């Protein structure tokens, strides 16, 4: 749910990184955080377990610049990927403007990707959204690993509606900003349409 403040001339949007456990959602945010100028970002908040697994969410605000005199600020969130944190995932989707689905390209994680994708559709519905109607991109992460499926196979299985599909190695930053750009662009385009 976009928040537009005419008084302070700001547009605030919420983007959620979704996907199965250990697919690299937090790594995406960490890379964005590490490679952004200090004046463009706030703190990276990680509500994680002692073993660094996301417990509730990661959050970072990111200022991209101005559009027609309005500061555009994106609030980036990740969800906890582990199956049993479903109640938390549902809550984090509240008010979402755009979703990035981070898929793990490794062959043995395909079932987890599919399960998480269904879970995303269900949880979006629970919050009153339709995956087919909201800004959405698919990121195929971990492209540097040896046991990965081909882009064609992953796309055939996971692409839902002709959304942009981006290859990534989040740990080294490959594709991370392209993914963010793809979803942010859709969010702003949606704003224009509404």
């Amino acid at each position, binding site marked *: *749910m*976009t*928040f*537009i*403040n*005419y*008084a*302070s001339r700001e547009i*605030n949007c*919420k983007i959620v990184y979704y996907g199965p456990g250990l697919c690299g959602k937090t790594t995406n945010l960490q890379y964005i955080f590490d490679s952004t100028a200090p004046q463009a970002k*706030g*703190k990276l*908040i990680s*509500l994680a377990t002692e073993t660094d697994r996301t417990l*509730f*969410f990661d*959050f970072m*605000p990111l200022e*991209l*610049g101005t*559009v*027609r005199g309005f500061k*555009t600020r994106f*609030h980036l*969130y990740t969800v906890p990927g582990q199956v049993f944190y479903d*109640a*938390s995932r*549902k*809550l*984090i989707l*509240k*008010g979402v403007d755009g979703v990035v689905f981070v898929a793990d390209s490794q062959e043995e994680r395909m079932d987890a990707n599919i399960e998480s994708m269904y879970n995303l559709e269900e949880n979006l519905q629970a*919050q*009153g*959204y339709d995956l087919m109607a909201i800004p959405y991109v698919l990121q195929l992460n971990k492209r540097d690993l040896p046991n990965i499926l081909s882009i064609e196979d992953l796309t055939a299985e996971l692409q839902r509606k002709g959304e942009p599909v981006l290859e990534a190695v989040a740990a080294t930053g490959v594709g991370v*900003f392209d993914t963010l*750009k793809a979803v*942010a*662009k859709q969010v*702003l*385009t949606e*704003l*224009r*349409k*509404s």
Partner: protein
Amino acid sequence: MADTSIILHEQQYQQIKAVLAKLSLDAASRVVFLVDKDGQQIAAHGDVGDIDTTSLASLAAGNVAATGGMAQLIGEKEFPTLSHEGERESIHICVIGRVLLVVVFDERSSLGLVKLRVKQVSNELAAIFEELKREAAKQRTDEAFFSEITDEDIDSLFS
């Protein structure tokens, strides 16, 4: 159906700021925030100092969402107020429709006083947001500004 966007114009923003300023004074608080339930800060008043207000807003919303989830599991609609008392600083959060009123206070005030003052301004804030909702629905069709955003404007953000 998901909530529609909050669109805040100068007049309502000043109205909200005035309510927060009064509350901050009456409750002898350190700082008062208004945050939407999705974690976006709407307005603040008081001694923000080195508080990271953006993070606080997001965490307050997460906090309310999590306790709201617990409420529903035990058959409650939501927990309308939450209080966290620390050794020196404390936080009181009150849910008012789709927004959260967050009051940070120290030993110069008390939870009782904060609760009382928050209750007194809740209706006022609820009325402002009701009005905002009505206006947003009315203005939706005549708002030309965002339709003027071009692809070049969007691309320039990433150049």
